[in-house]
């Protein structure tokens, strides 16, 4: 495996303080390697977006990071902890090193400014010495890269279709050539045809430019196809993390298996599917032990009492994956 570019260590993120506090992300350990696409899947409320915002320190109050480290490896310099950066350092870190594409690109562009202005603004803010001409050239280049004709530079967001707006957002994220791009449900609002075009383009760009992607979505079948590794979150914790193919062929955690069994297949025999019974847990009253146990078809004695630790399972391909489930007790916990 290639070297890591972003390491999340024991990250805890909560909302609110005191008695009202809700722990949305609990003890998450995750490593993003250079040039890979890491998929992050889970239901709404599982903490996947909170994790992304926590890592980039974009979390608005009352969100607070209550502990942990996020180590960034710049490649040519010493690694540093993103959570310890000062405001000025953070300003330099953002967009230059990590960029984020938000959920609902439709609303992320400013409707009263031309897209050319919005693209060059980024350059102006991060590289004040750049001339106006070269800014324009760069913006044009970027649009071409994401497949939009350069004559749409002077269009307003409402003049573009949803797919084009999403491409502009991706172009904006890549304009400073960051090492890490975080995409928070980038294609949920789009049609399947457009979704495939944009993801295909993204993968192509990644091969050309060599950045790493954290891809957040609830659509597991999409992740299996497009990402290298998948981490599955439930109730604020990572319950399983493995190469995409291993998850698909042989999911160890009952929740991952349940998620995979929730998608009707387009090909192959028609089978009766059940989904997962029950409803997602309330973050305020999290069940004891494994937070999935009230919905788990395979729950047994230890599940209700003890929280399973994320670690390497004893299966043959155990060295490349980790799981937090009492069905697969571990001797090598991750990140402790």
């Amino acid at each position, binding site marked *: 495996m290639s070297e890591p570019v972003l390491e999340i260590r024991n990250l805890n993120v909560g909302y609110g303080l005191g008695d009202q506090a809700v722990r949305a992300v609990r003890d998450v350990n995750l490593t993003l390697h250079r040039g890979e696409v890491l998929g992050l899947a889970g239901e709404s409320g599982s903490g996947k977006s909170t994790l992304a915002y926590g890592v980039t320190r974009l979390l608005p109050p009352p969100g607070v990071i209550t502990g942990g480290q996020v180590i960034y490896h710049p490649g040519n310099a010493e690694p540093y902890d993103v959570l310890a950066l000062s405001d000025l350092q953070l300003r330099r870190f953002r967009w230059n090193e990590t960029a984020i594409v938000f959920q609902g690109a439709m609303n992320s562009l400013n409707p009263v400014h031309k897209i050319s202005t919005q693209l060059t603004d980024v350059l102006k803010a991060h590289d004040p010495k750049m001339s106006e001409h070269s800014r324009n050239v760069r913006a044009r280049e970027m649009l071409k890269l994401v497949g939009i004709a350069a004559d749409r530079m002077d269009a307003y967001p409402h003049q573009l*279709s949803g797919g084009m707006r999403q491409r502009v957002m991706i172009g904006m994220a890549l304009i400073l050539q960051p090492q890490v791009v975080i995409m928070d449900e980038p294609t949920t609002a789009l049609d399947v*045809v457009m979704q495939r075009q944009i993801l295909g383009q993204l993968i192509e760009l990644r091969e050309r430019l060599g950045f790493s992607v954290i891809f957040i979505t*609830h659509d597991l079948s999409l992740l*299996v*196809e497009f990402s290298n590794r998948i981490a599955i979150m439930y109730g604020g914790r990572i319950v399983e993390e493995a190469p995409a193919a291993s998850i698909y062929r042989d999911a160890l955690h009952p929740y991952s298996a349940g998620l995979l069994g929730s*998608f009707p297949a387009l090909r192959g025999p*028609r089978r009766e599917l*059940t989904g997962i019974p029950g409803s997602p847990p309330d973050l305020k009253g999290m069940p004891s032990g494994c937070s999935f146990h009230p919905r788990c078809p395979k729950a047994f004695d230890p599940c209700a009492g003890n929280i399973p630790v994320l670690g390497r399972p004893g299966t043959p391909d155990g060295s490349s994956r980790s799981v937090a489930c009492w069905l697969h007790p571990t001797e090598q916990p991750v990140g402790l």
Partner: protein
Amino acid sequence: MTSIPDAKAPADEVVLEAIGLTKHFPVRRRLRDLFSKRHDAVHAVDDVNLTLRRGQVVALVGESGSGKSTVARLLAQLYPRTSGDIRLHGESTKVKAGTAFRRYCARVQMIFQDPFASLNPVHTIRYHLTRALKIHGNAGKTEDDLEQALHGLLERVSLTPPERYLDKFPHELSGGQRQRVAIARALGAEPEALLADEPVSMLDVSIRLGVLNLLRDLKERLNLAILYITHDIASARYFADETMVMYAGRMVEGGDSETVTQSPAHPYTRLLIDSAPDPDRLTGVSEAEGEDRGNGEPPSLIHPPSGCRFHPRCPVAMPRCSVELPVRLEIGDKPGHWAACWLYDKTEAVSR
């Protein structure tokens, strides 16, 4: 509380039918248009034919903007139609408001996409369901009848025990439970047809199937005719007996779900199926964006393309496609499988 006429209704009796259904939304005229004779309109739905039968699910699949929700709203008579006909049990119906509309509603109910918006946040579940029962005269005579009817409704949608849910407010329920309440409310009218406009797309993936399975169960138990609108063609295969594909306001293909998804005939349906996420295509990333794939975007519906509306994106378009509007043509592999595409015009093939 049930008086569903199952004895006199054969299983595949036609409940609701749309014939040549068309809806154009007028576009606001600008100053310069006042001097011209131009009257622009968005051609949201053009010439749609659709039949809902008892105990069957028909899926309507298409991208957003293809007009599939407009079809549902036309069938629910929430929009007046521009032309065409809607027939309830063979009888042409056009209702605007008042008692006629209520009577129609009692037989054709709609379920909306967003259960977070379709329930009033300041009222309890009891209020929502009681209203539906009372308006459609299914509340019975006494308090006890009503209470029993309420329990019956919640039990039907598997919200048990009912007492636990009746006096809750919508915000106290999860998305799946809310959608179940919305379904219960629709059932309160004891309808014959349900129009479900993307009933699961706002729900979490893990509970979508629960709701779909519930709808299927209700279909079988209550002998309902269901129109299932979705953009997810895989779920149409899973849930629907018959699937119709819509593109830019027109039906392009129809047939039983298995045939349409396994051997799609229209180039647009093929594009749709190729684009759907497929975990089995693990190497899909490296696959080139081939030239034989349709690209581009759905057309403007104000000035839709002449001829076949898909021809500007179609990888196999012929000169004829941009001129002549394709008619429904039988594919011939399975009975009832048709596509509106000139590729399947046998007479043309013979004369060539």
